[in-house]
């Protein structure tokens, strides 16, 4: 194998896996998947299989950069270092950066919610097929984002030359940042990664501890039952779609402002779909879904690290997380079939 022995390859993988950097990378790579997966969870619990989630990531990634850029420009307001002095200028810049990334998140949320409400309108009110509408939404974004990029930044492939890279703060956790290994692993991530972990618990509580969650689950499982006790099924599904847009949009923000630093065409690279797969495998349970999302993120990180070995073509390694997703889905459907068979045998 290209001059490497099998034991060397496994040795290399082992050396990758045992480094704390690799695990920190896993946590980072999982963030966008997990946002998408949490959004899918809520939609799935309300009975909507939301395929538009990948388009959501692609579009909100773009919207984040645009909002970030405009707000920073607006805060700085044309002031130059030479005019106001370095100290004042730096203070303004810091303020602009903070306002920028917050605007990026908020802007993405607003757009994400609108996109998901549009999707919901097609699926709930116009009774369009959810899978086809999802594909339609994704294709729409594939064309719309480059078009808007061309109009706003003059470049349809990326926003790299339009403005400075995004600036989302990195959080150094006190105490932990001074402990070796743990500091690499848990400290020094982007703030969105911590928000993401918090969202797992928020979504879990929302679905299982609140009245709205109870209604979402009831509507998704037996809409007739929900309707017979006076629940407005349509309203609940719209609420779930809105929440899906809210949580999913942060995945897009992470991709552009944190992971890449700017927006490029097809920035999600299918991460929305992987998130959707994680939510399907986890049966829309936020905790189980999170575990699957981390498994996929782990493969994502492994693929990137293995490039150093220049043994496999990089395309092959990029395939790893998708391949893992596929294997996961196949195992899931086998176990589902077995369950059905068992249930039938019981009769």
């Amino acid at each position, binding site marked *: 194998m290209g001059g490497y022995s099998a034991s060397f390859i496994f040795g290399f993988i082992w050396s990758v896996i045992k480094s704390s950097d690799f695990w920190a990378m896993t946590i980072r790579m999982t963030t966008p998947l997990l946002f998408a997966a949490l959004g899918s969870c809520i939609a799935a619990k309300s009975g909507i299989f939301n395929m538009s989630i990948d388009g959501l990531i692609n579009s909100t990634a773009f919207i984040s950069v645009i909002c970030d850029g405009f707000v920073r420009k607006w805060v700085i307001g044309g002031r130059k270092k030479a005019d106001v002095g370095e100290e004042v200028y730096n203070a303004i810049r810091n303020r602009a950066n903070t306002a920028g990334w917050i605007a990026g998140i908020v802007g993405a949320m607003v757009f994400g919610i609108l996109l998901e409400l549009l999707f919901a309108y097609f699926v709930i009110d116009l009774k369009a097929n959810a899978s086809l509408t999802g594909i339609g939404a994704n294709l729409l974004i594939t064309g719309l984002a480059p078009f808007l990029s061309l109009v706003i930044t003059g470049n349809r492939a990326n926003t790299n030359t339009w403005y400075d890279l995004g600036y989302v703060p990195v959080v150094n956790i006190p105490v932990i940042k001074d402990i070796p290994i743990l500091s690499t692993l848990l400290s020094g991530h982007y703030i969105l990664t911590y928000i993401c972990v918090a969202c797992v618990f928020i979504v879990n509580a929302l679905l299982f501890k609140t009245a709205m969650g109870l209604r979402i*689950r009831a509507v998704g499982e037996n809409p007739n*039952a*929900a309707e017979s006790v*006076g*629940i407005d099924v349509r309203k609940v599904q719209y609420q779930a779609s809105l929440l899906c847009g809210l949580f999913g949009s942060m995945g897009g923000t992470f991709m552009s402002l944190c992971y890449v630093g700017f927006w490029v065409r097809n920035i999600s690279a299918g991460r929305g779909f992987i998130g959707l797969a994680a939510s399907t495998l986890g049966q829309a349970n936020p905790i189980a879904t999170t575990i699957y999302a981390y498994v996929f993120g782990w493969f994502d990180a492994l693929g990137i690290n293995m490039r150093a070995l220049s043994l496999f073509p990089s395309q092959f390694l990029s395939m790893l997380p998708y391949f893992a997703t596929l294997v996961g889905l196949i195992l899931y459907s086998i176990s589902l079939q077995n369950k059905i068979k068992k249930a039938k045998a019981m009769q």
Partner: protein
Amino acid sequence: MAQEVLLMDKITKVYANGFVANQDVTLSVNKGEIHALVGENGAGKTTLMKVLFGIEQPEGGRIVIDGKEVQIHNPLEAIQYGVGMVHQHFMQVPSLTVAENMVLGMEPKSKSKIFLDKAEMIRMTEEVSKKYNLIVDPTLKIEDCSVVAKQKVEILKALIRGAKILILDEPTAVLTPQETDELFVELKNLVADGEHTIVFISHKLHEVKALCDRLTVLRLGKSVGKANVADVTEADISRMMVGRDVILEIDKEPAQPKETVLKVEHLTIHNDFGKTMLNDVNFSVRKGEILGVAGVEGNGQMELAEAISGLRTFNHGDIKINNTSIKGKTVRQIRELGFSHINEDRMTYGVADKASVKNNIMADRYYKKEYLTRHGLLDHKKIDAEVDELIKKFLVKTETRDEQVKMLSGGNIQKVVVAREFSSDPDIILADQPTRGIDVGATEFIRNQLVALRDEGKAVLLISADLNEVLEVSDSIIVLNNNEIAAYIEDASKLEEYELGEYMLGVKQMTAEEVAKVVHD
């Protein structure tokens, strides 16, 4: 004089397709009674209750509850007027607990107003459960509950929302006899306080006798009588239910039965809940005869049809077509034994509604050698010629053979099914509700075709909920009741409808020897 709590006065409901489900139906229920609403399938009982529960809007008539005229536009309003419905198919969410299902839509919240108060949920459930002596475990998930427990939850769901008038739509259909007795005790207990009233929908007359105070009879969408249960016998009720008007008479010669084609031996089928739907049933159908199967729906007709056509496995016994057992055979293999089948569910099993007339007619035979060219491709020239001929012969009104089936009227869709099923040269035809919901012209045509096939020496097994059809078309009749054959009438022309009604409703029952005559050779 008892106080009238509910009056449905001259209710008329016409469905969008023109079907008149209720015509000037009047139902008057007194406070604190158990009122039976009886009638055959399709008599309009369920429609009437849907109108009361706000699921359907009537075209005419008025509803008066507690002396006040009300308009009920949706189930929520019905609940507010104190009307609760216990659906035949439980309206429950399987993965949620009993308590969660109970409070759905009116969830108690904790002090912070954010989270659900699970303890309060359980307390509310236990309170109402104890009050009405319908004991359930609030923490159990619905999917882990027994059928009886689910039914209790369904009743409690209505009670916890303040229902004073409870509608129970055939609640015993899913219960064993012991469970039914237990339910009746609970229901009597419920109305004992004088505050609650029950409308009990059923077509099991002994249950009506055992449980109810008064009854209203519906027939063909009209209310045809009411009575105190104590004043009438089961036979009286059955006569009110099954009276008929002869609309179509079929001209036919007496049957000349020959050798046996279909043989059903000791057939026993349990449904998905483990309930016995057919219990040790034996009969045979011979060439040149039409054997009708009559019975109130839910007495095993559906399971019988599914078993013979290979759509369902059976637990004990055997089914033979031309002396070959169909056990373990696929639907296609069974058809190749000389079987054809008009399914009761036309749109699901009868046709592929988005496919063309041509493809639907060819669906059972396209793979056969005679329709293939020598290169193994479909021989469209030959297929088109045959399809055109069948369209003409079976009077299918369609623009072209390539028209989508769903564009046709109900009667013409059924003619497409019949064109396929009758032209495959079968030895035995299972006609399951062959004319349900179609126009008179198509009905007459299909019935005459069945008789013509019989005269050609085919065997026909006719399952129908339409008494006219069973009595007019069949040569002999078996009646299913209580999941067994209750009667075998060798010469259907000598049978009076009220007598058939008595067998169907379990008022009368033949001896085992008399029933055994249906097994030939």
